[in-house]
């Protein structure tokens, strides 16, 4: 009997060692840098965050790389945009991870776009319209009011998943909400001169930003979403600007600047590179920096300076 117990203990020992890395910290796998930054704000030292993409990668076009599978396998929480932004890689990544906690529908699977109102929801789905997303435009992080909504939901989710640090998440959530709110007030006031300005976008990536600041998108350089700008389409955009001039052309840090630069030269308007996410520009070091930098770049362009 005794030896049997000893044997069982011997068998259990390696299992215990396997179980030990059940860290005190919650392991968060963020698909995009903005959600990684948000998880840092809300979780601080209680979370261990890995970010799957950087600001100069196109979040539509990521591969289910081995390193990502390994990290998704060990995650307690996957925080992604959702709204089909990651449809080309996230489903296969989760499937291959063998991690039951982060499968769709589980508490460990958090899709930010579920908590905001989506714009550009297509009335009809047809790929002849380009890379349209059935759930609406997924680039929700360009409006800080969306970040506030997502932060509230994410703080709740962190409390649910890691009850031992519940109070800490709640405190940090409330603190972030307060700081974020006053920052939004500041950005909105500062950006007031932008209201009503006509702009051109390279990709339909900024509808939420425009919705917030009251900018008017008069043209898009991509002929269809996700389709590279063509010379003929650029000429059409240029011609359309004659009757309806725009003040600037806006592109995201991860995009090829050439189409925007071409329009900038030919239409005589500044091309503005915006960070799009945390890390996209030198100024966008965190979520606050992201909007500080975005607003100041847009203002500089509106004032006539070439914000590059």
């Amino acid at each position, binding site marked *: 009997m005794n030896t049997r117990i000893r044997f069982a203990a011997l068998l259990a020992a390696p299992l215990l060692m396997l179980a030990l890395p059940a860290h005190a910290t919650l392991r968060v796998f963020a698909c995009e840098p903005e959600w990684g930054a948000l998880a840092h704000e809300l979780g601080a030292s209680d979370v261990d965050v890995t970010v799957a993409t*950087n600001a100069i990668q196109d979040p539509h076009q990521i591969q289910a790389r*081995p390193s990502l599978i390994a990290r998704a396998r060990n995650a307690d929480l996957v925080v992604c945009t959702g709204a089909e932004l990651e449809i*080309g*890689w996230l489903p296969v990544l989760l499937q291959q*991870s063998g*991690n*039951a906690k982060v499968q769709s529908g589980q508490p460990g699977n958090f899709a930010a776009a579920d908590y905001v109102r989506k714009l550009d929801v297509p009335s009809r789905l047809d790929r002849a319209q380009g890379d349209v997303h059935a759930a609406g435009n997924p680039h929700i992080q360009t409006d800080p*009011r969306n970040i*506030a909504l997502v932060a*509230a939901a994410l703080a709740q989710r962190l409390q649910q998943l890691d009850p031992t640090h519940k109070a800490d998440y709640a405190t940090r959530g409330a603190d972030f909400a307060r700081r974020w709110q006053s920052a939004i007030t500041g950005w909105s006031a500062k950006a007031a001169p932008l209201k009503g300005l006509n702009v051109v976008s390279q990709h339909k990536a900024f509808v939420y930003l425009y919705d917030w600041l009251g900018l008017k998108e008069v043209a898009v350089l991509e002929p269809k979403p996700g389709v590279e700008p063509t010379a003929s389409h650029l000429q059409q955009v240029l011609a359309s600007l004659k009757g309806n001039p725009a003040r600037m052309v806006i592109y995201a840090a991860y995009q090829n600047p050439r189409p925007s630069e071409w329009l900038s030269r030919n239409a005589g308007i500044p091309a503005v590179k915006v960070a799009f996410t945390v890390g996209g520009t030198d100024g966008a070091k965190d979520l606050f920096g992201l909007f500080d930098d975005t607003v100041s770049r847009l203002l500089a362009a509106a004032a006539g300076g070439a914000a590059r």
Partner: protein
Amino acid sequence: MHRLLPASIALALAAPLSALADTSADITAMRQEIDALRASYEARLQALEQRLKATEAAAATPATPPPAPPPAAPPPATVAASGNGFNPSISLILSGLYTHTSQDPGKYGITGFPLPGDAEIGPGPRGLGLTESELGLAASVDPWWRGAANISIHADNTLEIEEAYVQTTALGNGLSLKAGRFFANVGYLNPQHSHTWDFVDNPLAYQAMLGTQYGDDGLQATWIAPIDQYVELSAELGRGRSFPGTDSGRNGAGMAAFSAHTGGDIGDSSSWRAGLSVLNAKASAQRLSTLNRSGSLVDSAFSGSTRVWVADAIWKWAPDGNATRTNFKLQGEYLRSRRNGSLVYDVDGADSAGAYGATQSGWYLQGIYQFMPHWRVGLRTEQLDAGTPDYGVNAGALAGDGFRPKKNTLMLDFSASEFSRVRLQFARDQAHEGASDNQLFLQYQMSLGAHGAHSY
């Protein structure tokens, strides 16, 4: 709530103050005071704590939404009106091909590699034609299983169930189980569907040693190690229904395979994966077209076992990891097959049974470069070695001459979007001794319906 603050400050101060007290009497007195304080406040503290918790929970929701006009409330959940909302996602791959060859494809063979008469090797029929149309269905079954099927409709109007499997989703611990029909998880290319290949055809080594692509009916267990380094182990059992095995209605398994893969990133720009796999298959009375010394094809029957080792490696590069504009992919595999058993030479004629043992090997190396958006160019070079088979008593009729099949392939493809691809491919195929073949293909591959997510 505010009365809690002085109390806690007093408590907090009491502890460090006690350190300053000189005599033990003072300490005792203070302890007693604190105890008294604690006793009297304990009940109220608990009550206050509970009230605090309740207010916090209530405050968590209303405190966070911004007072500034919010973009909007979360949308009402869109629920499909009918039961159709549960329909599986459906995708359809449409593909067609124009083939031009300098040799008759009907006489194609890989010299030194006896294969079943119906093996899918070579360039296929000349002229315009459809390649397989592939219908894919996939959905969650319930919270514990998902299911997927790929049904391939061939140009000759025959249906083939390429894959039809169920897979666990809720086992956790990096483990998943699959049951049904699926492509064996060996090597790099074997589990990949043909519409994701970078060339029109699979490499010669796959054609000669794994029946182009090895699929089977069986069970598979896959496990991802719980460490930051990617380590994937998989083991599977199958009935051995296709080459290099044969379906013979045995009770046990006719195929067993095991594979180990690892991989990772090198900075932001590169990633890699490499692995080693082994597949064992049993064959009985497997009909093979064998080329004899006088140069004619005769039917032989192989019974025995085959062990195929596959070493695979792939390296992908894109500037800063952004593959949208340019990217490069280098991929290579080495296959080694050991067949052991008996061979009945010329089944309908001489019918001479003898021992048979052969060690065959082959490799390919390919590079694919996307030099500008939409456009990719690719080069593949490959070679096979039939080894020196031991034909036993049939050595007089069958011995080979050490010919090494070779092939070089160049391709250029254009993808208007990620859903469509048009490809031009030229190959100089020297697999058949004395019959070098120049092959030209023009192919389209289009994907309709559900957005497929591709594995690495």
